[in-house]
C-alpha cells in the first residue's frame, strides 16, 4: 500500500521526537500568548511556557476537558482572530451546548493531508470511487473524509447519510469501490442489500473505512463477511480535529497515530497518572500544529492501548488499539454522540414529566434504536390521550433538536423507574 507522506510516516524516533518537541514548545508559546483560557490555567498552576524543555514535560501541563470546551462556547478557545478562521464545525456536549471547532486555512490543509494519510493507509488510491455516508454538516466526519479522499485523488461521492436504498443504487451504478461511514451503517447497508435481493456481484465494492462508533473485531468480521470487503478502522474526534488522527494500514494491527501532529498519551482516568505502553488507559491528545484551536492534553475519554513498535507496513509512528470503551457515560448512537445528561436537561424543562428516565438502545436490523422511557405524573396519565400524544411529540422534537436523533418514546407510570437507581442506560447492542 502506498504511504502518503513517507517522510513524516516513517521518521526515525529521534527525528520524530525533535519535531514533536519543537512543535510542542511553539504550541505552548502560542496557547499561552493567544488563548486566555490557557494563560489563566498556566498562571493558576504557576507554570510558564519555558517550563517545557523536553517531551516528558508534557505531564506538567494542564488537561483540557470537554467541559472546558463547552464553557468556552462559542469562540473563547480560538487562538486566532475570527477572520483567519475559514471553517467552523461543532460537536455535542453534555450540557447541550457543544464545543465549537474553528479551522484556519492552514488547519484545513493539514486536515486534508492527514486524512489522505489515513485513507492511503487503508488502501485507497486515485483509481477508487469513494462513497461517503457520514453526514455532511456540523459533524466533522463527512467533510473530513471528503477532502482527504479528494486529496488522494479518489472520485468522491458526497452521498451523506440516510436513504439506504438510494445509497445502494448509487453504489451499484457509480461503481463505488470504497465505502466510508459508521460500521453499523455498513451492516445496515448489507441488510438492505439482501432485502432488495441485489446480488453482491453487481457491486464493485472492495474496501471500507469505518469510524465514529465502537468497532470491535467481531463487527469487522461480520462486515467483511457480509459485504465481502476489507474493513479498516480509523479514529478521529471532532473536538480535536475530526478524522485523520489515526487509521489502520492493510495489516489491521492498530491505528497509526499521526504523531507529527498529535502527541498521544495514556492516563489512568482516576489517578491521572501515565499508563505504560501495552496497558489500557484513557487517550489524551495534544495538538502540535493546529492554529485555530490548539488543545493541550485533551482528555478524549476513549480507552485504548498504545504500541510504539514500528509496523510491518514501514510506518514508524505509534499505533493505538481499537477503542474499547469510554471513561464517561457518553453514548454513540448511529454515530451520533449523546450524553444522558442532555436528555435529562430536556426532561427537566418539560412540565408534567418526572425527572426519572431510562435510555434503552437496541440494534434492530443493524440499525441503532433509541428508546426513552419517561415517568409522567399521575394527572397526565389519567388525562386525555391527545395530551399524552402532544407530550410525546414535544419530548421527541426537543431531543431531536438537541442531539439530532429522534427517539422512540414510552411514557410510564410514576415510580416505575425510580427504583432503577443509576441504571439510566441499558445498552443491548453487545459492542
Amino acid at each position: 500500500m502506498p504511504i502518503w507522506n513517507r517522510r513524516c510516516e516513517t521518521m526515525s524516533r529521534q527525528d520524530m521526537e525533535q519535531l514533536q518537541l519543537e512543535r510542542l514548545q511553539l504550541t505552548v508559546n502560542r496557547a499561552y500568548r493567544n488563548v486566555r483560557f490557557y494563560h489563566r490555567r498556566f498562571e493558576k498552576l504557576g507554570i510558564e511556557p519555558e517550563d517545557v524543555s523536553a517531551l516528558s514535560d508534557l505531564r506538567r501541563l494542564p488537561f483540557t476537558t470537554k467541559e472546558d470546551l463547552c464553557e468556552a462556547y462559542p469562540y473563547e478557545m480560538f487562538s486566532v482572530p475570527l477572520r483567519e478562521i475559514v471553517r467552523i464545525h461543532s460537536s455535542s456536549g453534555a450540557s447541550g451546548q457543544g464545543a465549537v471547532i474553528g479551522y484556519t486555512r492552514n488547519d484545513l490543509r493539514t486536515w486534508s493531508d492527514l486524512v489522505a494519510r489515513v485513507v492511503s493507509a487503508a488502501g485507497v488510491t486515485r483509481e477508487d470511487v469513494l462513497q461517503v455516508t457520514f453526514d455532511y454538516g456540523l459533524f466533522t466526519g463527512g467533510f473530513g473524509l471528503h477532502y482527504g479522499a479528494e486529496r488522494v485523488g479518489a472520485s468522491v461521492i458526497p452521498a451523506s447519510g440516510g436513504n439506504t436504498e438510494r445509497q445502494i443504487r448509487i453504489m451499484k451504478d457509480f461503481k463505488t469501490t470504497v465505502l466510508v461511514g459508521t460500521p453499523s451503517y455498513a451492516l445496515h447497508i448489507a441488510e438492505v442489500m439482501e432485502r432488495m435481493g441485489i446480488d453482491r456481484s453487481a457491486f464493485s465494492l472492495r474496501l471500507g473505512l469505518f469510524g465514529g462508533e465502537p468497532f470491535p473485531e467481531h463487527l469487522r468480521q461480520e462486515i467483511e463477511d457480509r459485504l465481502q470487503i476489507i474493513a479498516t478502522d480509523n479514529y478521529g474526534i471532532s473536538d480535536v480535529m475530526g478524522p485523520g488522527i489515526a487509521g489502520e494500514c492493510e495489516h489491521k494491527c492498530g491505528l497509526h497515530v499521526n504523531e507529527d501532529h498529535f502527541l498521544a498519551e495514556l492516563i489512568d482516568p482516576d489517578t491521572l497518572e501515565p499508563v505504560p505502553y501495552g496497558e489500557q488507559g484513557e487517550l489524551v491528545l495534544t495538538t502540535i500544529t493546529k492554529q485555530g484551536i490548539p488543545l493541550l492534553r485533551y482528555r478524549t475519554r476513549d480507552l485504548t492501548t498504545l504500541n510504539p513498535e514500528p509496523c510491518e507496513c514501514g510506518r514508524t509512528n505509534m499505533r493505538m488499539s481499537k477503542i474499547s470503551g469510554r471513561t464517561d457515560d457518553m453514548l454513540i448512537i448511529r454515530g451520533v454522540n449523546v450524553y444522558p445528561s442532555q436528555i435529562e436537561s430536556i426532561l427537566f424543562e418539560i412540565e408534567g414529566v418526572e425527572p426519572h428516565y431510562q435510555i434503552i438502545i437496541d440494534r434492530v436490523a443493524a440499525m441503532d434504536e433509541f428508546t426513552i422511557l419517561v415517568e409522567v405524573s399521575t394527572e397526565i396519565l389519567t388525562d386525555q390521550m391527545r395530551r399524552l400524544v402532544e407530550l410525546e411529540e414535544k419530548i421527541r422534537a426537543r431531543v431531536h433538536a438537541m442531539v439530532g436523533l429522534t427517539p422512540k418514546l414510552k411514557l410510564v407510570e410514576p415510580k416505575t423507574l425510580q427504583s432503577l437507581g443509576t441504571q439510566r442506560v441499558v445498552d443491548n447492542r453487545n459492542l
Partner: protein
Amino acid sequence: MLRLTSVVAAYGRITALRKVSMHVGVGEIVAVIGANGAGKTTLLDTISGVLSPQSGSINFDGREVAGLSPERLVQMGMSHVPQGRQLFPDMTVYENLVLGAYRRSRADKRAQMREDLERVYSIFPRLEERHTQLAGTLSGGEQQMVAIGRALMSRPKLLLLDEPSMGLAPLVIRDIFKIISTLHKEGTTVLVVEQNAKAAFSIAQRGYVIETGRVILEGTAHELERNPEVQRAYLGKGYKQIIES
C-alpha cells in the same frame, strides 16, 4: 545536520533565547524570521560558538557542540556570515577572502586555498575583478559577496547567514539570494536568519518564526508565506484591514 534542543542564551542579564528548539536537515535551506530584537543574531551566535548557551543542547553533525569555540566549529564545517558583513575595510578583497582559510592546517594550505579561491571567484566573478580593491570601498552588495566568499573558504557543510539582505537594494538582494540558492544546490546546507521574510522564503524550504526569543511558528516556506500572522508582521500585508476594523 543541526539540532537545537531547548536552548537558552542570554546577553548579560537579558535572556535572548527562551527554550529554542529547531533543526536543519542535511541539504536543507532553513529560514528563521523575526523582527528586530527577536533573538535572531543571538541564535546564530550561539550556534556558531560566539556565545555559550546557558542551557540546552546543540548537536552538529552528530556531536554535541554547545560551548565549543568558534574556531573548533569552523574546523568541523560550520561557517558564520555575520550581520553587517564584518570585513576588514582596509584590507583588499583577496586578503579578506584568504582570512577565511585561516583554520586550514599549514600542509594542505596552499594547494587547497588556491582551489577554494578559484571556486569563490567562479561564484562571484566580480570579486576576482576587484581582488586588489580595498574592501571598505566596495558597494554593500559586493561586501556581502566578500563576506559569503570568506565563509566559503573554509569549505563549510553548514553555512549560517545573518541578515544577508541588510542594507541592500532589492535587485542586489535578489542577486545575493540567487547565489545562496546556488550554493545550496551545490550541496551546502544553509540556515539563514532574516527580517526580510519575502527574500528568505524565496529560497528556503522550511522556516521558523521567532518572537522575543521564542519560536511561535514553524512550517514549510510555502505555509509560512501564506500565514496571515506572518503576512501581517513580516510581509507588510493586511495593515489596511487592521486599521479599518
